[in-house]
């Protein structure tokens, strides 16, 4: 699992590589909350193009990030969801709660 941050339109992109499971969701949670709560980044884009798998603990980390961004009036934007990740979002009925885009161009233009 690797998490890298880079600047993007009005915010920061977090590029995630690897599976977001019980072993690695704490790292995703930490990176998200650091951007949202500590750095007060107005737009945090989560690039999930290289995430093959996400479990319920990963979804919980994203929900925490979403709640923090709502509390602070910032935005959390997800893009590049694989079929597997999209399926889990649908099972959680969260696909309409999160702001989700197909790719980086669409996400950063939003």
């Amino acid at each position, binding site marked *: 699992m690797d998490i890298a941050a880079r600047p993007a339109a009005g915010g920061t992109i977090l590029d995630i590589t690897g599976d977001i*499971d*019980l072993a690695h969701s704490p790292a995703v949670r930490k990176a998200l909350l650091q951007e949202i709560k500590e750095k007060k980044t107005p737009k945090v884009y989560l690039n999930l193009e290289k995430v093959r*798998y996400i*479990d*319920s603990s990963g979804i*919980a980390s994203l929900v*925490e990030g979403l709640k923090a961004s709502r509390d602070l009036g910032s935005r959390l934007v997800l893009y590049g969801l694989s079929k597997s990740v999209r399926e889990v979002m649908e*099972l959680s*009925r969260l696909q309409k709660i999160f702001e989700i885009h197909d790719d980086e161009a669409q996400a950063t233009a939003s």
Partner: protein
Amino acid sequence: MRGRVSKSRTTRRESKQPNDEMLLKLELRSNPEALCLVRATVERAAEVLHFPEGDARAIVRSVDEALANVMRHAYGGRQGLPIEMRCRRWSGESIEGKQSGIEIVLQDHGIAVDPAKMKGRPLNEIRPGGLGLHFIRQSMDVVEFSRKNGKNQLRMVKYLTPTPRPAGSEGE
């Protein structure tokens, strides 16, 4: 058996025919780093049994979530404790007729699971946690929790291809 919780499509009759062969028996430790290895192994097992891609993902997701539950709840996050996973080709009958598929049984020595508390959270609540069991129930055809000889056991079955019911049959 005490504290058994089953899904509505639980099987009534199961046969142990020559096809009911053991595919895998894994003894792993309660280390989250092991989950990726189990996922890869279970994915291959589902492929060997010719499950469609979506069903294979559902099986992998269920095993992963079940193991994560054992590690987090039954073992309270303690690492290095034993978990056994058995996986076999399965055949039997369900309310939908003759079925074949995959059966996965997990056993751990953790604290007793209270089936009454194994409900997961309502999906309309947007809050972290409580989704793992929901994923399992959504993904598998049979989900049974039990406690035997000081061990928690979770048995899950996924049907390979539902056999159409004969005309006029009302089922069980």
